[in-house]
């Protein structure tokens, strides 16, 4: 915890931390055992069998049995460790459903985070205790890495890509946030605080923000950049309807499929001709250079929120933002 002073072992503040530390301590114990064994044997032999004029060395007898023993036993041990580690790792790479979404953008040399309701933080992140939080991270410039030692999790923030990680805090408190991928001059200063709060306190804190949500901001951008012109109104035959697509697999022109996730949305906005949806022409213009990373996240949030029946009004020319018209079809 921040401000706590000298420790020999990091604080455990997440569900993963508890599980990982068990594996870690097993590794420490096992390593201690083998290192100790070797060191004791070496020292013992070096002392007992030190060179003496009255004793000649013995002939070395090879022993296939011994070789097999000390090959097979380590092999079994490492496979065991691998499986244990793989189990934890797979657990930790797949965020649970319903996790609280947080979007993080790293840039030289600060962390910008945004909660699902739009509340923004810089170099700080408030998180609830007892609920899973999913971080989707990217970078605006070079590779950074979002690292919370107390939670034992780390994920590189790569420019041009979205990477996710998740954690569930178990203890309220303030914990270190470090950038863990060297990123230039002030890499060591790209640090911050993770503030874990009891859920109700967290909800209060979150609710304290009443301005624009990412979905609302995204909706505005959707209109501002003219996306609605193609993707919502009667011109749907030129561009696909985006409602309800998030998380599904879409068929691509020229064969193949793609998962409609954050990365796909981002690519479609910046490189629309890279993956055309099946049955459509490559007519979408690119918005590279016009959309910032944060605007991108807002647009993604908006598109994620679109439901399948969103085909808005059929009113010519009038572009109404989606939202409250379920069941209204063209």
């Amino acid at each position, binding site marked *: 915890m921040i401000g706590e002073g000298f420790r020999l072992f990091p604080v455990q503040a997440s569900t993963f931390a508890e599980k990982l530390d068990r594996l870690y301590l097993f590794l420490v114990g096992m390593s201690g055992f083998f290192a100790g064994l070797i060191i004791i044997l070496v020292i013992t032999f070096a002392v007992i069998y030190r060179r003496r004029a009255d004793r000649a060395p*013995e002939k070395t007898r090879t022993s296939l049995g011994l070789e097999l023993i000390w*090959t097979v036993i380590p092999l079994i041990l490492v496979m065991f460790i691998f499986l244990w580690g793989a189990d934890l790792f797979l657990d930790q790479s797949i965020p649970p459903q319903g996790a609280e979404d947080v979007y993080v953008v790293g840039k030289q040399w600060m962390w910008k985070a945004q909660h699902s309701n739009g509340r923004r933080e810089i170099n700080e992140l408030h998180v609830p205790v007892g609920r899973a939080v999913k971080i989707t991270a990217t970078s605006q410039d070079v590779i950074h890495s979002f690292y919370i030692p107390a939670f034992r*999790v*780390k994920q590189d923030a790569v420019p041009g890509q979205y990477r996710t990680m998740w954690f569930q805090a178990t203890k309220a408190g303030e914990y270190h946030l470090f950038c863990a991928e*060297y990123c230039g001059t002030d890499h060591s200063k790209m640090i911050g605080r993770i503030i874990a709060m009891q859920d109700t306190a967290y909800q209060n804190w979150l609710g304290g923000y009443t301005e624009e949500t990412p979905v609302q901001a995204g909706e505005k951008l959707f209109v501002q950049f003219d996306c609605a012109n193609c993707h919502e109104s009667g011109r749907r035959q030129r561009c696909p309807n985006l409602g309800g697509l998030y998380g599904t697999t879409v068929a691509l022109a020229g064969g193949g499929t793609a998962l409609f996730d954050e990365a796909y949305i981002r690519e479609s906005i910046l490189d629309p001709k890279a993956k055309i949806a099946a049955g459509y022409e490559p007519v979408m213009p690119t918005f590279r250079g016009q959309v910032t990373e944060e605007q991108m996240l807002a647009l993604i949030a908006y598109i994620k929120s679109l439901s399948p029946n969103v085909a808005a009004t059929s009113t010519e020319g009038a572009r109404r933002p989606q939202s409250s018209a379920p069941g209204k079809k063209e």
Partner: protein
Amino acid sequence: MSTQLAIFTREHYLNVSYGWKSWLFTRDHKRIALLFLMTITFFFFLGGAFATMVRLELMTPQGDLFQAQTYNKLFSMHGIVMIFLFLIPSIPAVLGNFLVPIMIGARDLAFPRLNLLSWYLLVIGGVFTLWAIVAGGVDTGWTFYTPYSSLFSNTNVVLAVIGIFISGFSSILTGLNFIVTIHQMRAPGMTWFRLPLFIWSHYATAIIQVLGTPVVAITLLLVAVERVWRVGIFDPALGGDPILFQHLFWFYSHPAVYIMILPGMGVVSELITTHSHKQIFGYTFVAFSSLAIAIIGFAVWGHHMFVAGQSQYASLMFSILSFLVAIPSAIKVFNWTATLYKGSISYSAPMLYALGFIGLFTIGGLTGLFLATTAVDLHVTDTYFVVAHFHYIMVGGMVMAYLGGIHHWWPKISGKMYPEGWARLAALIVFIGFNLTFFPQFVLGYLGMPRRYYAYADEFQVLNVMSTAGASILAVGYVLPMVYLIWSLRYGESASANPWGATGLEWQIPSPPPTENFEETPIVEEPAYNYESYSRASV
């Protein structure tokens, strides 16, 4: 035996000719080995100077000794110089060059002129790197991750990359030379399974040098192209993929660490057997484990990228292979330990270094298992845990093996004995200083202190101060051999042909050897390390 008189009148490779031309244009593998020795010693101390400055800054949590940018250059240059200009050449270019022909009963390597070219390439590569340093340094880290290195850094990336590119070819040529020599030029009767294990490990190392180095060469070349012409090969904003760089870079740089450690393991096999006067336990297993490490080592590079954004399944594949590559190393450690059993163990400085190697390499190797475990790596990658792990292997392992080898073969190379008392003291100081420097870093890493930080959270200070204190002791341990080895050249006791009572062809010829190594090509009839039928000759 009037060795004193023999040195003055007998011709050998050192006194056969004098003058700078006879050294700079030599084709004698032994002289070339010494040229390499001087070059890499210079770079070792240069890299050490950078390390000293790094550790001084890290005594306090604030960044108060250097500016951030300067510190970033210091750790980058420490890594670049130590890895490419010291560790990669070290044992192969010095001890390998000197001993490979002699150990197999040959007069020289297969390609003596290529060998000399190899030294010149290292020097030229070193000059470019020095130029990069003097022109203001480079701050990308030795890993040159894009897009920072290709677009954002304002430092001398291209110069540094050229230096590494050229010195890489030095490594390739050394490897090529060793492979051909070991295949083609063994003396009659020197079958593969009678070869000293030093040769096996250099052979395995050479395979990696030849196959791996070209990949990093072309990768760094692409980074230079990207930087100079502002085109996007690895930059996402211009269409490239920064993760592709990481794959290409680590495809070499992981096997590179085996280039750095395998020769050390070969040295240790020689030291353990000689200084316990006992045949190695499990010769075949140790020999094949060198090859296994080289081959499997090419398949594990992704363990540097568990959090970089590769698929989970790739990560698991790399993880399992990384565990597998640890097994042959474990086999070696067990075999060395078993060799000591009922041996006749001398406490000479080379043996102390070898015993220290076994302990420290074991610890370093075991911590590699932590890193191979994907889940643990999520927490400790990019922290001081990794720094501690690789320093245990490289410094606690490789450098100790190197120093042990230098001492062990010093009589053969120079014709003089080093002062044993001072040497043992230095070995002890190195051992103590090393552990004090690097063990706290494991703790720091698990606590969460990231790498490449010049300012850190207050609670990390105690361990950092311990580490710096250890570094100051370690430095003493490294300076001492410089002093007494040079001293011994003039004042040391003359050495006989076989001061250790060792087996091996190099001990059958005079110290120092004549230029042609052997008066007559030896005929080998005995297995390696045949100590039973060998009468013990003491110093």
